[in-house]
């Protein structure tokens, strides 16, 4: 009977407990720079890894709002931009400010939170997906503002020369140091989101996602709970933006285009909505895929199969793999389409979402009603 098959409660990877996977991932992430230090892979990989970590932060943060409360935020990159610009403006020669790392990190997160609050005020009062529309508009307005408010942001020219941060008296300079700094924040964000998820607060978000009316009747202040999710996810984006600006030393509006918001959405859809390990995996895969492909075809595969192993290949295939970055959105799109068809719950699904995705058509449930009574009456154990 399909009803019973679909309600399976088994974890996605039943043979390994989740915490061991998390620990393994953390160890792998911590050991990764050593591959570069010992010359196993090229130095560029530290940059790839650091950028991937920034996207992991963003994916984990967006997942808080999209995965837990089910609200679509299509302008998430704007909160990232606000964090980045705050840091750039207050720690660069632009206006001669040099606010220290921690206060500026708090400021960056704080302004992103304020923006989240202001976006939430009009859109969360209404039921339904108004947030998607409002955030979409907000994302564009934010980028236009940074692009056109030249007296402050220097417009398309961007803000160069962002100072290196001093963290606990230690000047963070080398790429590898940034890698570890951002990794620390990734761990903090993961812990924060995981703790919220497994608490009264996270339960309220899930309940609102499943049935807003029932959740409110059960004592949840819907608007406030959603606002909390929106503001916390904005804070994570703000922190990510600040770290990104410090690391990059230069920002301009092109880093914060709408497509970036879309990519982050794709990352969590790929990994599995509501799933923290999914968000991490989705971000790492989608962000480093282009570099991985380029490297594979320009150095690793030639090393194995000989310099001109692509000699017989048609031209378009060769350019496809060597200039993979150009086709990035195409690949992202394809990956998502394939996922939605074959594994809509994502690579490492969250238990709740897996059930939701596989939930049966209610009309069909109505249809099996009589059978259900029979189960109830006779062989109750069918259900356990």
């Amino acid at each position, binding site marked *: 009977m399909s*009803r*019973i098959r679909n*309600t399976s*409660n088994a974890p996605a990877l039943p043979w390994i407990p989740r915490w061991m996977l998390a620990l393994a991932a953390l160890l792998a992430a911590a050991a990764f720079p050593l591959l570069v230090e010992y010359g196993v892979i090229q130095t560029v990989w530290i940059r790839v890894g650091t950028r991937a970590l920034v996207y992991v932060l963003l994916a984990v943060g967006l997942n808080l709002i999209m995965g837990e409360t089910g609200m679509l935020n299509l302008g998430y990159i704007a909160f990232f931009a606000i964090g980045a610009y705050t840091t750039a403006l207050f720690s660069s020669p632009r206006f001669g400010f040099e606010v220290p790392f921690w206060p500026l990190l708090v400021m960056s997160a704080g302004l992103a939170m304020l923006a989240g609050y202001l976006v939430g005020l009009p859109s969360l009062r209404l039921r339904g997906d108004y947030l998607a529309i409002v955030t979409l508009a907000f994302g564009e307005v934010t980028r236009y503002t940074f692009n056109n408010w030249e007296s402050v942001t220097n417009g398309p020219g961007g803000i160069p020369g962002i100072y290196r941060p001093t963290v606990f008296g230690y000047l963070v300079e080398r790429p590898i140091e940034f890698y570890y700094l951002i990794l620390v924040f990734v761990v903090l964000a993961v812990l*924060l989101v995981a*703790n*919220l998820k497994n*608490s*009264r*607060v*996270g*339960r*309220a978000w*899930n*309940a609102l996602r*499943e*049935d807003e*009316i*029932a*959740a*409110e*009747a*059960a*004592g*949840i*202040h*819907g608007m406030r709970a959603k606002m*909390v999710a929106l503001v*916390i996810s904005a804070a994570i984006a703000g922190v990510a933006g600040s770290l990104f600006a410090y690391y990059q030393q230069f920002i301009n509006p092109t880093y914060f285009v709408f497509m970036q918001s879309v990519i982050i959405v794709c990352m969590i859809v790929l990994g599995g909505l509501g799933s923290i390990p999914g968000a991490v995996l989705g971000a790492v895969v989608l962000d480093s895929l282009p570099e991985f492909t380029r490297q594979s075809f320009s150095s690793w595969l030639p090393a194995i199969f000989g310099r001109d192993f692509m000699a017989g290949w048609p031209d378009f295939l060769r350019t496809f793999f060597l200039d993979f970055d150009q086709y990035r959105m195409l690949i992202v799109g394809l990956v998502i389409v394939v996922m939605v068809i074959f594994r809509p719950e994502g690579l490492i699904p969250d238990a*709740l*979402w897996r*059930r*939701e995705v596989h*939930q*049966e058509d209610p009309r069909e449930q109505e249809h099996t*009603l009589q059978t*259900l*009574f029979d*189960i*109830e*009456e006779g062989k*109750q154990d069918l*259900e*356990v």
Partner: protein
Amino acid sequence: MTPILEFKNVTKTFGGLSAVKNLSFTVDRGEIVSIIGPNGSGKTTAFNLITGIYQPDYGDILYEGQSVVGLRPDQVQGLGIARTFQLLRLFSSMTVLENVLVGMHGRMRTGVFSAILRLPSVVKEERKAKAKAKEILALFPGRFSEGRQGQPAQALSYANRRRLEIARALASDPKLLLLDEPVAGMNPAETMELMHQIRDLREAGRTILLIEHDMKVIMGASDRVIVMDHGEKIAEGIPDVVAKDPLVVEAYLGKRAASIA
């Protein structure tokens, strides 16, 4: 003594249709009162008006002497009124236990910051809440085994979903429990069992306002019956008397049957 619930000339219209028309009644503490009436007579709308899902156009609704008009649903629930839904509204992907825990939301204190830090107080409150949720589920003996508590609500049979709705409502320890057709779709044996359980809830000190549209079902269970038809109260009293009221018989069976009876 002030009644626990009082409707004062409440009217609610949708478009041109008066779903509830000039409705007045009271419920006293410790009573089991049933609202009955044919489909579409405004019973569920009355519940939605109490719980803040709809606002009345006219009239007032008092809970323990205080108006609840204008309050949000979560505020109403916080005052001690919990409800179930006729068209089940469980959190179907969440587990049985989690459904009950959501019902406890308003009684729990864990805030965002303590949750983020997962303070010992949070862990302790969570453990206590789970224990209490299990106690509530145990009010339905044999229906929510340990294994079933970890299953998603959507895996439950129809009757068990109805029971879970009640359990979730009970989780907030309400003084007034509103049950919207709690036995709909249950077989006679299950209905009897639930009626006993509802009486037990009253013995435990709760007031119960119950909607049912099958006259026979509530005869034994309720102290008092309010009969609605087309949004209006057409009769009120103890079940045996109301059941013989010609207006009620007519509303239920139509004029022809009424003349035969």
